[in-house]
């Protein structure tokens, strides 16, 4: 919009300048014509009595056919004195030797080269014809026009710069408002500041704020619903699982085996519920963060959780580079879900006899590397799809990677999957890039 406004205003201003200058030239042309004609007529009329007196004074004397008095310089006006028969009696020194091809009639006449004025003595015995070269008039008009257009040519770029500056300054609040609205996402629903905005923009800011409040309510309701669903789903499963485990402890024989099958089903149900709740949260857009948090602590907590629940706690190795940190406006919950899925995948699908290395590096980079046969490009594409499970034989929902990817998109965190892993001929590596701002 700024660019278009600048272009239109500059174009309009330039057009106005040019039209004004053109009109000026046109007026100047007319006025110059009047002035030159006036001078021509005045000169002719003044010359008539002088020449008549001079001729009377020299009566009978040989009369010079050419004026000898003003041959010092080039004449601007030339004249010829002719009798009623058209014979040339006298001429100024620059005037042509042949009589002008102009009728002996009082008034103006124009040919291709001159503008004439013919004046006559009383009785029309003597005719004085004064001529003004049209070339002189054109030159005057051209110089005058140039004097008008030259400043315009300088003023156009100056006015472009001025218009650009004025437009930018005037539209700066619009840019500020646009940027403030652009910053809004699932994690930042703070109202747009409207106090500093011009009066015309305040209703827009108010409308945006109203919309943000409604959006926040919708997000809250969705998250609340997800949280309630989590509670409503988990608690009965927890009760059923605990009762089943008590039953297993109390039973012997076939009854115990059946109870164990129920327990296995409940554990599967627990896992599926977990994944679906995570997916629901990812779809509800929990990735945005409202305040600055320390994700390194979340990383340590999640790794500790896995160490406590996995039968091979030493398989998980967390390395934190000296000075590496992960602080920023992110969602701790989203990051924890991402980590749980990625670490679970690494433990489940990685080689059991190789460690799962989790590295927090400087520059806001998290790497999760596990041992694995290198994956082909096709397999890499499959595992990134929802319910895509590649060629693994390990149990899994096929949702983990897509949940992680969805949340990382919401968090604006770079996500790469590599196989083979960096610096190795095999293995699988996931890289999360938070950027230097988080480190």
């Amino acid at each position, binding site marked *: 919009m700024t660019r278009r406004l600048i272009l239109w205003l500059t174009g309009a201003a330039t057009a106005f300048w040019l039209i004004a200058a053109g009109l000026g030239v046109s007026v100047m042309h007319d006025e110059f014509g009047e002035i030159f004609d006036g001078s021509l007529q005045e000169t002719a009329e003044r010359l008539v009595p002088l020449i008549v007196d001079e001729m009377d004074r020299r009566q009978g004397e040989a009369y010079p056919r050419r004026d000898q008095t003003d041959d010092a310089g080039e004449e601007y006006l030339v004249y010829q004195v002719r009798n009623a028969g058209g014979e040339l009696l006298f001429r100024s020194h620059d005037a042509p030797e042949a009589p002008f091809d102009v009728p002996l009639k009082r008034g103006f006449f124009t040919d291709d080269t001159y503008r004439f004025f013919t004046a006559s003595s009383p009785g029309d015995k003597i005719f004085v014809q004064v001529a003004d070269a049209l070339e002189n008039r054109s030159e005057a008009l051209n110089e005058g026009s140039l004097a008008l257009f030259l400043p315009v040519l300088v003023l156009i770029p100056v006015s472009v710069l001025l218009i650009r500056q004025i437009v930018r300054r005037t539209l700066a609040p619009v840019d500020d408002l646009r940027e403030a609205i652009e910053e809004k996402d699932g994690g930042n629903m703070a109202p747009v500041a409207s106090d500093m905005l011009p009066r015309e923009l305040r209703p827009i800011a108010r409308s945006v704020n109203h919309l943000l409040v409604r959006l926040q309510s919708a997000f809250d309701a969705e998250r609340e619903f997800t*949280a309630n669903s*989590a*509670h409503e*789903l*988990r*608690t*009965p*499963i*927890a*009760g*059923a*699982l*605990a*009762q089943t*485990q*008590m039953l297993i*402890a109390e039973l012997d024989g076939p009854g115990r085996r059946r109870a164990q099958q129920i327990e296995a089903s*409940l554990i599967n149900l*627990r896992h599926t519920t*977990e994944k679906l*709740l995570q997916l629901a949260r990812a779809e509800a857009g929990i990735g945005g963060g409202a305040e600055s948090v320390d994700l390194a*602590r*979340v990383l340590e*907590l*999640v790794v500790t959780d896995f160490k406590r*629940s996995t039968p091979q706690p030493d398989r998980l190795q967390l390395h934190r580079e000296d000075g590496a940190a992960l602080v920023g406006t992110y969602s*701790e*919950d989203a*990051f*924890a879900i991402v980590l749980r899925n990625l670490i679970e995948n690494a433990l489940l699908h990685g080689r059991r006899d190789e460690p799962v290395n989790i590295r927090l590096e400087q520059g806001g980079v998290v790497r999760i590397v596990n041992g694995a046969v290198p994956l082909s490009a096709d397999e890499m594409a499959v595992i990134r799809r929802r319910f895509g499970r590649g060629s693994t034989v390990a149990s899994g929902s096929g949702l983990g990677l897509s949940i992680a990817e969805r949340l990382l998109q919401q968090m604006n965190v770079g996500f790469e999957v590599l196989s083979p892993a960096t610096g190795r001929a095999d293995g699988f590596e996931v890289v999360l890039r938070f950027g230097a701002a988080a480190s």
Partner: protein
Amino acid sequence: MRILLVEDNEILGEAVRDHVAAQDHAVDWMTTLEDARASLRAVSYGLILLDLRLPDGIGIALLKELRASGNATPVIILTAHDQISDRIEGLNSGADDYLVKPFDLGELSARMLAVLRRTGGNVSPVIRLADLKISQADRRVFLGEEEVSLSGREWAVLDTLLARPGAIISKAQIEEALYAFGSEIESNTVEVYVSRLRKKLGRDHVATVRGVGYKIGAPA
């Protein structure tokens, strides 16, 4: 050990109560915060298992009240809230551990044991006291190389003393641990079981602090 369970879901609460009681702990099961507060005013517990979403409020409020009043009883939160922010809030409010539903009862036992070891100042799964070696996970006791067999009540007394090795445990606290067995507690019940423990483990391991209670030596 006497344990307070605060859980409003009857099916889960019953299973957890029975499971914990089967570990020779005395369990008081409350379903509301109000009842839990009343129990805490009346009894000194060795551990609290606390649900967060209860009919009359949020468990975190009770936890904060406890810590604000200087009560350091270990607390394990049992909740369906699995979000890490809830967990961080719980830990910041003074919880010792956080277990997300649905959980395995075996994992609950392991977490209880770990918390009790940690809060008792003993981080090793095997406690060594001079020539005594006690494995709390599988509840086995060795005197030198020889395994000592303890009854449920004797284990309950030893477990209560082991919760804080080197610290004085009052007679009332040991009595509360013995409530799990449902029988009447006579005025000399504690003395009887302490005496039996001394016979099996040796006289020097359990010391009497006259008029105050008993203590077991700090671990080696």
